[in-house]
């Protein structure tokens, strides 16, 4: 893949970076660090992309591996604590539904957030298990639990 192709693919799939970073960043500084780290790592390793998987899958893996490696603090935010959430995360969303969804997903455990985002982006349990290095069974169990939690949270607001 040429440099030009890589940059164009990255722009085309920037939504993956945006969505994942917004699930894990605690504040603007975190967000900037994660964006920079992901782009830098993508730049350093894109030559290893051989095209045997989709670019989106490669980028997804890179984003998750980078985010989980660089995070030092547990950044779970309690859903009930709206003030804390607003302070920590001041980004304006495109609409209320998006904000509700992000807010709800961010209350989940960090690994569950990854599973939910992969699921919402259309990956099945087997693929999710390969992403995370867990069994498909555990991916299924975690997804089921997270979806139940999300449903309850989203119903209450």
């Amino acid at each position: 893949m040429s440099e030009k192709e890589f940059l164009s693919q990255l722009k085309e799939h920037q939504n993956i970076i945006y969505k994942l970073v917004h699930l894990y960043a605690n504040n603007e500084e975190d967000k900037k660090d994660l964006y920079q780290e992901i782009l830098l790592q993508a730049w350093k390793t894109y030559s290893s992309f051989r095209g045997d998987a989709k670019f989106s899958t490669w980028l997804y893996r890179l984003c998750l591996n980078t985010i989980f490696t660089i995070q030092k603090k547990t950044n779970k935010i309690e859903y009930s604590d709206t003030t804390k959430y607003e302070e920590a995360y001041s980004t304006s969303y495109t609409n209320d539904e998006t904000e509700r969804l992000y807010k709800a997903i961010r209350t989940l455990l960090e690994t569950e957030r990854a599973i939910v985002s992969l699921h919402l982006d259309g990956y099945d349990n087997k693929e999710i298990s390969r992403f995370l290095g867990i069994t498909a069974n555990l991916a299924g169990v975690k997804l089921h639990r997270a979806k139940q939690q999300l449903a309850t949270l989203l119903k209450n607001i």
Partner: protein
Amino acid sequence: MDLENTWQQSGAGDDMLNKLLQQKDFSNLHSKLPLKKLKRNLLIGMFWAILITLVYISLFFFINLWQVYIALCVLIFFNAWIMIDSWKLYKNTNENITPSNSLKQELQKNYNGFQNWWKLQQKAGLFVYPIAAAGGFILGGVKGSGKPVEVFLYNPKMIMILVITVLVLVPICYYGARWMFNYAYGKHLKKLKMLIDELSLDNENKSE
């Protein structure tokens, strides 16, 4: 709410990301990867080990005590071994993210990198601290008292003090190093371990 639809429409990007993506080269972006920090620390450690070894070598020209020579030889040999081990660890530690790794593999790579480094430090410390403490005690005692080492150590009291010095200094150094390691990397390692455990839950359940 249609979760899939809401999620997929949410990735419009923001100004910060758009601005970064305008660049044609990302190599100048700042990295905060922990393994990068670890590699830098390994280099700093090796630099200090070389400096300390040079100081040990220079002591041969100023001291004329065979007991201290033995301690110095052991320390120089040990420093060299630690430097080789550190260099191997430095070369084998891949600080970049590997997209072909699963998340668990990537977390383990980071966790093991730090654990290996800590094991190396412990290995070095447990051997070096007693010899350094004894060598320092003898050197200080001989210089301070102005007596030859045989006379200085002939007094059983001095032997007792030497043993006590080693017994006191070794744990202080050991736990001091452990505290510093935990202070510098404890939070990060704890977080990595927590995530690895979270991802290993299924295997544990099966083995129960």
